[in-house]
């Protein structure tokens, strides 16, 4: 959590600079941190803007008293779900996944694992590319009710914590995918492959049967099974089966 200003005058001076667009991101963070607790800061923020507005136009001296306006607005704002931008919601979701990932023990690296790591990466990339391509070619409207049922925004309250709101938002129809060429509402066609990937922003994983054929052509120990080709020589033999033979 951001530190707060300890000196009231320095805080008001920072607010004055903020009103002129002369503030660092840290100043903004500190101002927000003390906003609801410090009535003097709120009064100062309002006064500085009132002064500038009235200097530019005396008409701006009219209108609802700012404290009244803000108090009534807060009542309405409290009934609204906390909004999160798609990028922010994915960041929040990533933070949620991070503790789980940290419990997974890292693979012990050995010199001979390099070729297998390259092969596994190739498989993952091809699988993702084929999945996206397959999804793009799916006819529109297939399974559209799946996406239509998702709420547009999170229904969780701020008191429940921004993280819960972020996860709920990430599971709903995302704005970030609009115009990306991905057909929304495509049916879930996961045909029981060995890969398990979390849904990307609420969309189901589409599995292409061609991936199974490609996987079958790779050594089994790359994909997780036992293999008689446990040595590098065996791998080389498999890669170039007709070499000199």
């Amino acid at each position, binding site marked *: 959590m951001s530190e707060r200003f300890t000196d009231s005058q320095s805080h008001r001076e920072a607010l004055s600079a903020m009103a002129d667009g002369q503030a*660092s991101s840290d100043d903004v963070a500190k101002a927000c941190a003390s906003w609801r607790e410090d009535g003097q800061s709120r009064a100062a923020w309002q006064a500085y803007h009132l002064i500038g507005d009235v200097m530019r136009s005396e008409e701006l*001296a009219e209108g609802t008293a700012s404290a009244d306006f803000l108090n009534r607005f807060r009542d309405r704002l409290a009934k609204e779900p906390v909004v999160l931008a798609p990028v922010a919601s994915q960041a929040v979701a990533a933070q949620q996944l991070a503790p789980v990932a940290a419990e997974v023990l890292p693979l012990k690296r050995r010199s001979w694992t390099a070729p297998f790591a390259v092969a596994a990466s190739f498989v993952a990339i091809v699988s993702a590319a084929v999945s996206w391509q397959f999804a793009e070619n799916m006819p529109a409207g297939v399974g559209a009710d799946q996406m239509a049922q998702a709420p547009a925004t999170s229904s969780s309250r701020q008191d429940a914590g921004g993280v819960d709101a972020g996860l709920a938002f990430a599971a709903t129809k995302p704005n970030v995918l609009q115009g990306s060429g991905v057909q929304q509402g495509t049916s879930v066609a996961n045909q029981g492959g060995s890969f398990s990937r979390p849904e990307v922003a609420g969309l189901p994983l589409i599995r292409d049967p061609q991936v199974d054929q490609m996987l079958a052509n790779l050594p089994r120990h790359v994909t997780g099974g036992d293999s008689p080709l446990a040595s590098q020589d065996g791998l080389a033999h498999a890669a170039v089966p007709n070499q000199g033979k």
Partner: protein
Amino acid sequence: MTKDPIDLPDQDVVDALPEGLLRSVVAQGAAPAPVVDVDAALVERVQRGDQRAFEMLVVKYQRRIERLIARMVRDVDLVEDIAQETFIRAYRALPNFRGESAFYTWLYRIGVNTAKKALMGLKRDPLVTEAALASMDEEDDGPRVENELSDGETPESVLASRQIAETVNAAIEALSDDLRQAITLREIEGMSYEEIAELMNCPIGTVRSRIFRAREAIASKLRPLLDTRQGERW
């Protein structure tokens, strides 16, 4: 090889220096933090779930949005309701705000659309067309007719508004030349701190300090008026 000792000024010389100069010297010695677009920074915080940042934007733009709506709607009570609705709509739409325009430009459009929609619901024609709104918003004075009250406006509220304007003007006149010049260049001419510093031939820190002290002096004279306005409690 020994270095020449640094010549430090005597303490009484330091004490005689103006406080603003000392502060600006200290401020210039430290590496300044990068300045950000404040509205954009607040919007980003809202998009990450910080409603307090949105409240700061509400307080900042409340009067301008109410003035905009008041030019379309005569009923004073309706002006506040539509202004509240404008900010709520803006809050809901913030996840879609990409920053391609300034936040206030975007908020302005929401205010116009919200007012038009409210008037359509009431089957009333707006007082001013949108094209006229766009042209007059650039000017300081609107189309208001002198001595004509809007629906719901009381003589007391008009008097209170005039008192605020007169107090601000009087307080500015009472400022020292440096403070008055600094705040006028900032608020009326729209100059940046750097431009003001160059014009007034002083450090940027001094500009920041002068503008702050000017605002504090004016705010102290406004406080009795703001405290006595109905419900003005922070």
